[in-house]
């Protein structure tokens, strides 16, 4: 693995920052990564020395071969999603956990499939609350008794109101 990393780092197409990060990881330990999903603004994938990358892009009939693949989101505020769930082995550098050594299988990189415009169609409002009951529980008019009535309105030319407190 170390030899492969040295050969990858020797390639000249990296920007200085990526080259520095890679050089720093060469001597560090790589451990198997339990995490297979990552979010990133930019993803650089470089082929090992022996074989080129085989790249499929959804919507394109043909597949592509290449040494280096870079995917990045610049204007889009959402991160790219990187899934290595289908990869056989994922090793993570102890020095820089964002440097991963992947073997076999398939890694997928995808942008956001859905925007937030459907959000308002799907979000629930708060459950309707039961109103506090202010109406009289029992209303007695002469001998007739009514329970849980609505608001009672009284009118008349003259009447007395007696309150009990």
């Amino acid at each position, binding site marked *: 693995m170390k030899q492969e990393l040295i050969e990858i780092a020797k390639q000249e197409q990296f920007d200085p920052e990526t080259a520095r990060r890679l050089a720093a990881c060469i001597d560090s330990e790589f451990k198997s990564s339990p995490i297979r999903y990552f979010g990133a603004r930019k993803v650089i994938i470089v082929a090992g020395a022996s074989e080129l990358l085989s790249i499929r*892009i959804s919507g394109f009939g043909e597949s592509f071969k290449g040494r280096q693949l870079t995917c990045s989101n610049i204007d889009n505020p959402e991160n790219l999603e990187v899934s290595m769930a289908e990869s056989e082995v994922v090793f993570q550098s102890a020095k820089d956990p964002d440097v991963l050594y992947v073997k076999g299988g398939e890694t997928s990189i995808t942008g956001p499939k*859905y925007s937030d*415009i459907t959000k308002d169609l799907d979000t629930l409002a708060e459950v309707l609350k039961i*109103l506090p009951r202010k109406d009289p529980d029992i209303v007695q008019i002469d001998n007739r008794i009514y329970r849980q009535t609505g608001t009672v309105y009284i009118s008349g030319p003259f009447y007395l109101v007696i309150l009990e407190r």
Partner: protein
Amino acid sequence: MNEIQEISNLIDKEVEAITFADTSGLSSKRIGGIASARIVKLRNPKIITTENKIEILGPVFLVSVAELEKSIKNRHKTPGQNIFPEVVDDFIFSDSKEALNRLRTFDSAQAASDLVNLAKLVKVPSDSEKVVLVSKIKPLELVTEYIVDGKHTSGNFLGSLDLPLVLMTDNGAQFDFENPSHVVGTNQRVEESMALNMSSIMLLAERVDDNTIQITGGLKHVGWGNAMAVVSLICLLVGAFSFIEKRLFFFMALLIIGAALAIARYLPTNWNRKFFGMSEIQVVGNAYTVFKFYGEMA
């Protein structure tokens, strides 16, 4: 040939041009095809229907009536047994003044506002095949200011619209198209379903693919419930037979067991509600607006 047919032909030609464009040249942001979307957001759109030309200022949402109905029915819930979806149907289609009364014990101001606005857009069940343009989804707000055939209208709401209709704008549009869609782009990554942010668009809404369905969910231990009901019925039947045969002990025992099971299953006690759950009406599925379009990605 009417205007909508002319625009339809124009879109077909543009999509064909995008499909067969030389991809080796300069990168292009052109994209087009046939798409299904639940909702399309447009800014300052111009609309051509078979009868009118309408202009709206500001952002609006194009959504099918069926999708909007689903959204409102699922949006509000009443505690305990959720009666809200039934209230929506009663309020709209039965013109039932009693419908809102069913919500009178709840703090339902927001729900009532959504209901009243929805009822303005929907009159009969077949309206679910139409589309609407609304200025806000949550809470539901209708478009009340627009220009129709050059005449400024304020105060009257814009109702549901028959298909086909054309929408166009150079001020931005956004939608997520779903599978199956047939969208092509020149030098663009186009997937089976993806979010699109357009700077300009010409869109012809053709039909609504409504696969929404109203279901009753929320029930638990349905198997146990059915088993209890069946065993209870058997006990009561065999008990009745025992009574005829004058086997009083069996009659009493089976009567008690059958009645106990029936009570446990059907009496609306707290235990019953907790164990078997409360039935809840929900609308599932989506009602996609299917349209063909072309334009430039932002």
